[in-house]
């Protein structure tokens, strides 16, 4: 445990809801807080920020206990040094972009060169003179993130920063957020109910259910388990993690090594070789073959073993659980007719074919 870890031991009740969280958020890496709406994600962040009170427990960052300072009072929220970005961005409407950033920088005394670094990283140079009402949703979130970083926080919390944006803008903003979070020295909490965001941005995950921690640990493992437990029908999916090995700029594809194989992915050219990549693969995009097929356009072929064949919600389908050579789990959604025709049984070796177009890179 490093000096600046965030230690939480919280109990907070509202009519019909109790939040009970006892964990340590490490200073290294990004911790996702994942769960359905109403699971307590936002309440947890608001308790840490000090915006919700009347909870009992411990909030300790490094050696400082925020919940009890001298005199038995908790540390006032404005002294906690938290960068807090919400889905509404909450920019100050009476100030322009520069004014919003200065509001934070003046109070933190952040050196000018570090201010410039933040503005450059989030590409805000051309927006500085704009009024906040003239910004698009994605620009607002970039300003909000920059403003939070300008306050030189010890802890960063992002609460669904992408949820007000459409799909295309999300992908762009994810890259900005990933870069900004990569160098952040303290704990980072990233709240979302979107699996793809979690996989793209977080290293660890806290899975909240009805105010309690269901799982905490590595994001891939945690979300794979979550998917296995919740998946049915169209929801069924698996998660693969890998590392970029090389780019083929001519074909605009990247070679990604995963445990037990290699796959080719589009849309990764802007990331360096060695960078980690995670994928969510929907079960309906996985095809099984008994033998190496000929004359087929699908390029991503992975050796796997069938571990189980489960029933699906739809009577015509079933979920074939696979284990890849490297031990990773994957699910294929096939018709029962296909399973009978190939006479697939647990223990059989198969080839899992994954269509490249279905692999949205995260």
């Amino acid at each position, binding site marked *: 445990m490093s000096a600046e870890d965030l230690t939480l031991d919280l109990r907070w009740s509202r009519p019909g809801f109790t939040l009970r969280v006892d964990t340590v958020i490490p200073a290294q890496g990004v911790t996702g807080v994942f769960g359905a709406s109403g699971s307590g994600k936002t309440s947890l962040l608001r308790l840490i920020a000090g915006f919700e009170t009347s909870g009992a427990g411990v909030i300790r960052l490094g050696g400082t206990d925020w919940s009890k300072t001298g005199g038995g009072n908790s540390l006032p929220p404005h002294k906690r040094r938290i960068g807090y970005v919400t889905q509404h961005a*909450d920019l100050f409407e009476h100030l322009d972009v520069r004014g919003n950033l200065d509001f934070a920088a003046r109070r933190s005394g952040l050196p000018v060169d570090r201010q410039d670094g933040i503005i450059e990283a989030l590409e805000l140079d051309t927006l500085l003179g704009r009024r906040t009402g003239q910004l698009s949703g994605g620009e607002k979130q970039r300003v909000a993130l920059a403003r939070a970083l300008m306050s030189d926080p010890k802890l960063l919390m992002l609460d669904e920063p992408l949820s007000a944006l459409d799909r295309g803008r999300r992908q762009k903003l994810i890259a900005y957020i990933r870069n900004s979070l990569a160098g952040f020295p303290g704990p980072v909490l990233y709240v979302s109910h979107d699996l793809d965001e979690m996989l793209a941005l977080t290293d660890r995950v806290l899975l909240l259910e009805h105010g309690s921690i269901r799982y905490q640990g590595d994001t891939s493992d945690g979300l794979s388990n979550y998917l296995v437990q919740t998946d049915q029908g169209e929801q069924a999916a698996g998660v693969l993690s890998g590392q970029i090995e090389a780019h083929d700029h001519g074909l605009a594809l990247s070679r990604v090594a995963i445990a037990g194989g290699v796959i080719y992915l589009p849309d990764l050219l802007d990331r360096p070789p060695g960078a980690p990549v995670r994928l969510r693969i929907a079960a309906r995009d996985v095809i099984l073959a008994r033998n190496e097929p000929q004359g087929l356009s699908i390029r991503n072929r992975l050796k796997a073993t069938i571990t189980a064949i489960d029933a699906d919600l739809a009577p015509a389908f079933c979920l074939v659980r696979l284990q890849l050579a490297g031990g990773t789990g994957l699910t294929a959604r096939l018709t029962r007719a296909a399973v009978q025709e190939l006479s697939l049984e647990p223990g059989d070796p198969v080839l899992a074919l994954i269509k490249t177009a279905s692999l949205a890179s995260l």
Partner: protein
Amino acid sequence: MSAEWESIFLSLRLAGLVTVMLLVIATPLAWWLARSRDPLRPVVEALTALPLVLPPTVLGFYLLILLNPQSPIGSFWREWTGGSLTFSFAGLVVASIVYSLPFAVQPLQTAFASVGRGQLEAATSLGAGPLDRFLHIVIPHSIRGYITAAVLSFSHTLGEFGIVLMMGGSIPGETRVVSIALFEAVETLDYDTAHTLAAGLILFAFVTLLAVFALNRRFPVHVR
């Protein structure tokens, strides 16, 4: 200086002083009314709004009872300053503050209530304490509310009549404000003076309102 000018300057002095004092008094009151969940809030809200519905003579009557030199407040004032709170300029200031209070409080309360919780929490997380937030988020956000409160307080004080008659009488240079001077001019059939005062007030009111509406266009409403 002619008697008309004397009463005009007296009115402007009274309205100006009352407006400044009201903005100072109404700011914390309006903030409390806009934010508090205290069960006493509706009571205070109703008390603040009373001058809107009561005839000025009712207020004037009770203020006369409350502030006369034999009353505790009046005698304290007399010991402290040597003056009286009835039939004096100081008394008019106190009476006008009570009378115009809702005109300052209500626009401010509306403006304060419209400051988004998100903006205040953002300022908090960026290191701004309560006073800092009030000065740098709430007040800039509420400029239109302040303009409205100032204009309404000023013009309402300028136009009051009944309460002045009850509390102040008509002492030249002390309590003989424009509305009283106008009333006396009409009573004595001095229509020239009455016209000057009445037309002057109309012109003044129009120019003030015009200036305010022009100014307001420069401050966009922040809708959340």
